[in-house]
């Protein structure tokens, strides 16, 4: 283990294109994910970001954490702005003033992606622009104070779907955003987690290098919103994968691959019980979640097997 600890960091890109000193909460899984994404992307990239935690924590005037060109305009239009940046790059390339090797990467939270920005994203994916879209999913509107989104999981307490005398928190199942991306027939869709850094960075590079739209969905543990200890973010991210709550997979031109396939899924309770947002759950609700997770996971395995020729 010790030798591994010495060796593994050496494989990582040293250069930080997302500089420290930003204002994210300690233990923020989203900032960790952004940092890894930026290590993988390199310097020849233009980042388009939505309003949300990552924007607010990294660009308070007159400071910036961004070592690459970066633009933010609004909450819901990130994919559309990215379309314009790509078109601008094309125009400049025609005139020999830019190169198509400059990659355009849009970044947004789950609210900006699955709710208010889903129209702009769908339009951009359908039009086939050559860009990568990354959703940092912390399962609620964290920047504005832990309000529910359509990516909030069943049973989670949020400030707009709180637990009360007659409410058990979120009463809907998480919107399957990667499936929506897949439905656009784009060349590359993947899920990732900063708890699996190499898997994440490989996927970022793949997405970056593919011609056409690529969509990455990264589960980002938010200690503030999930009511979790700030030193457990990496472990909780792992548990999301090991329980099957958030499987890591890729869809390349429609072909599904499961990247981490634990021989046996752990009980979802291992994941849920560490989080304050689930502390009110009854055994029945946990059972319901367990069943749903298993069913979704089986569906995914079916898709993987289908492409394996079974």
């Amino acid at each position, binding site marked *: 283990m010790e030798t591994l600890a010495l060796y593994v960091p050496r494989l990582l890109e040293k250069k930080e294109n997302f500089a420290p000193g930003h204002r994210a909460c300690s233990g923020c899984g989203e900032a960790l994910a952004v940092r890894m994404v930026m290590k993988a992307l390199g310097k020849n990239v233009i980042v388009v970001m939505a309003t949300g935690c990552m924007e*607010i924590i990294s660009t308070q005037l007159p400071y910036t954490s961004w070592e690459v060109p970066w*633009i933010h305009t609004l909450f819901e239009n990130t994919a559309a702005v990215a379309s*314009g940046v790509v*078109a*601008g790059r094309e*125009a*400049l390339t025609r005139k020999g003033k*830019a190169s198509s090797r400059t990659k355009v990467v849009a970044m947004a939270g789950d609210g900006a992606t699955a709710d208010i920005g889903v129209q702009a994203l769908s339009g951009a994916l359908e039009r086939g622009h050559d860009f990568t879209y990354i959703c940092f999913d912390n399962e609620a509107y964290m920047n504005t104070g832990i309000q529910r989104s359509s990516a909030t999981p069943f049973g989670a307490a949020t400030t707009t779907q709180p637990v009360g005398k007659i409410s058990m928190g979120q009463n809907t199942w998480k919107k399957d955003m990667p499936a929506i991306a897949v439905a656009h027939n784009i060349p590359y869709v993947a899920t990732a987690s900063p708890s699996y850094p190499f898997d994440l960075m490989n996927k970022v590079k793949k997405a970056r290098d593919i011609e056409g739209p690529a969509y990455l969905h990264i589960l980002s543990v938010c200690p503030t919103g999930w009511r979790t200890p700030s030193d457990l973010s990496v472990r909780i991210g792992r548990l999301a994968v090991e329980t099957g709550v958030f499987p890591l997979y890729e869809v390349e031109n429609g072909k599904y691959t499961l990247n981490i396939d634990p021989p046996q899924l752990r009980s979802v309770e291992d994941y849920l019980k560490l989080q304050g947002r689930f502390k009110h759950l009854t055994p029945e609700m946990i059972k319901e979640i367990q069943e749903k997770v298993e069913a979704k996971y089986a569906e995914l395995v079916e898709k993987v097997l289908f492409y394996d020729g079974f």
Partner: protein
Amino acid sequence: MKRVGLESSLAIAEAVRLAGVDVVSAYPITPQTHIIERIAQMVADGDLNASYIPVESEHSAMSGCLGAAAMGVRTFTATAGQGLELMHEVLPVASAMRLPVVMAICNRALSSPLSIWGDHSDIMAARDSGWVQMFAENGQQAFDLTLCAFRIAEDVEVLLPTAINIDGFHLSHVIESVLIPEQGEVDKFLPELPRPYVLDPRKPLTMGDFATPELYIEAKKSQDVALRNSKKVILQAWQEFEGVFGRRYSPVETYRADGASVLLLTMGSFSEVAMEAIDRLRESGEKVGLIRLRLWRPFPFEEFRQVASQADLLVVLDRAVSFGGPGPVCSEVQAALYPLSKKPQVAGFIGGLGGRDITTEGFEDMIRNARKKADAGRLGEVEIIGVRE
């Protein structure tokens, strides 16, 4: 240079082609469709070497323009009515981020009831978005002002988005006699786009940061100063335009205003009808004249005061309602006149909503009516004219 009979919408498309626009990001809405359809055809035929983004909404149309303009390429869009409303959130971002997008607006009434026809409700609701805003009266002006818009918006002293307003249908769909210059003449007037602040990995910039109360007001002050100062460049651009093409534009244009005791003020294509009314009244010996407000933002205080202060009565036509308040143009000109010691009385009328015509007689009546009101001391009220009770 050749003279052609051309629909005003197509004249704008022609200006876009001659300007060599790089990116067009647009969404269709009546009465703007002819502009973007023609541009799409030019791109499809290879006559315009541009990227055309057929976005899924106006919100995305303007957002796409932001992205392209931030890359430092020449950017155009067009819209109308509900489309401008849907863009509303994005408009002030374009100006605050100093992104020189050019937009044609085929002014259209706002729902409800749904109306595809013209008035100025759309642009008046976007008045405070920080854009340079001008109004064209005819097809030639639509063409000319579109060319000028690129020259003004992209000037490094300005770097502000610019809108050319043309009346939906009344102007957008009218075939006009238009002089179309050669490419060489356009190139003499319109330089290559300067690219002082752009997204470029070799020189990384952070654009669109967030500001605490310590810095926000400074950002807004500098934006306001930039828009006010843009008038210098606008005047210079129009002067250069005259030098190359021989046609002259000013922020406040007049018609038979010399020695007029009553001045009518209009914006956009209705000015041409108003001119006929002025001719008729002048023929019957009345000392009336016309102010055609060409530049709406930055508001040309000096030029306006100089012309308007000589009259006794100013009759203002608004083609938008500020519900429960005075007409937006009327309140603006009243505020501009208020500090003057010698100023005309102001009579405000609202008309021409949702495509309703105002005829020559209509303007004559308006002026007579204004006189009567002034004599009776009843100028305080706004009046919506031409209503069937």
